[in-house]
């Protein structure tokens, strides 16, 4: 019997490809976001709502959509005049760096791109472990969910830099306590920056879009 010491990250291969993606995207000065949430929290709606704001600023951006099946989300985003590429993962519950690497040729076909939003498969568990090569992971949670979600799904909240609490217009009709949700999120990840949005009323969308634009411009300058 032999014992062979390995001491390697299980997702080392994914991390390597993610590092290549990050380098390639950074070379072109593109700020990249990995947008995650449970299904139905409003990731695509948030992108749709931000589209006009980002165009006004102006920020040139494109979207890569990850879903199990179909190109419904890419079509929704394209209708807002935003270039979108659909990746279908089949049965996989998350995007990985390898899948994203295949979309880069399409991404780089758009000259002068400043911001890339990768909308991950709706899932609050699996995407936490898969680095795609993004600059920031952003979690969206909605007021139709529980305000204890950060405590129940801590991995995704600790992996994120930003949190968007969406559907604030619905809050009066649910038991969701925004103050408590903020507290829970900051307990799990004290470094989270938190935004509140409603895609229905437009509340907070401009602030969030402007913040992303600043991040993208800062990256371009660096």
């Amino acid at each position, binding site marked *: 019997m032999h014992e062979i010491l*390995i001491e390697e*990250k299980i997702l080392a291969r994914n991390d390597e490809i993610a590092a290549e993606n990050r380098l390639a995207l950074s070379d072109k000065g593109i700020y990249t976001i990995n947008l995650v949430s449970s299904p139905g929290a409003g990731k695509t709606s948030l992108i749709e709502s931000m589209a006009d704001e980002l165009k006004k600023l102006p920020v040139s951006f494109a979207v890569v959509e990850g879903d199990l099946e179909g190109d419904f989300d890419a079509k929704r985003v394209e209708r807002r005049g935003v270039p979108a590429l659909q990746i279908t993962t089949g049965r996989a519950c998350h995007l990985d760096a390898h899948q994203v690497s295949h979309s880069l040729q399409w991404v780089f076909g758009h000259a002068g791109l400043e911001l890339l939003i990768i909308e991950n498969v709706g899932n609050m568990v699996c995407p936490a472990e898969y680095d795609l090569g993004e600059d920031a992971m952003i979690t969206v949670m909605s007021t139709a969910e529980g305000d204890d979600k950060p405590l129940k*799904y801590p*991995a995704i909240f600790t992996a994120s830099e930003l949190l968007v609490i969406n559907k604030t217009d619905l809050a009066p009709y649910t038991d969701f306590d925004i103050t408590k949700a903020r507290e829970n999120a900051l*307990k799990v990840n004290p470094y989270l920056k938190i935004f509140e949005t409603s895609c229905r009323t437009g509340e907070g969308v401009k602030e969030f879009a402007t913040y992303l634009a600043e991040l993208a411009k800062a990256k371009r300058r660096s």
Partner: protein
Amino acid sequence: MHEMSITRSMLEITAAQMEANGIHSLKKLKVRIGELTAVEPDVLRFCFDIAIKGTPFEGAALEIEEVPLGGKCRICATEFKITAFENRCPKCGSNEIERTSGHELDIISLEGD
């Protein structure tokens, strides 16, 4: 259920290491899983057992070392286990806490002939 893709990644590394070291039959695989990862040890065991059926790895055992979420106080350097995300040093009460463990997702070693 991404434990299956995690298992696949584990077995890819294992196969490469076995080949490099001239190991033909796998007896045990040791991995380290942090509390703050999105990997559930029981689900990983289940996926591992299914994934190795009918492969050269069949019969191998998976040993999981679970690592709790650990913190270190930036003020008094006390190291402790963080429970219920209480970001406070149990010794001096400071909330300047650095998280030192809990994110592990490592393959430690393999045993075989």
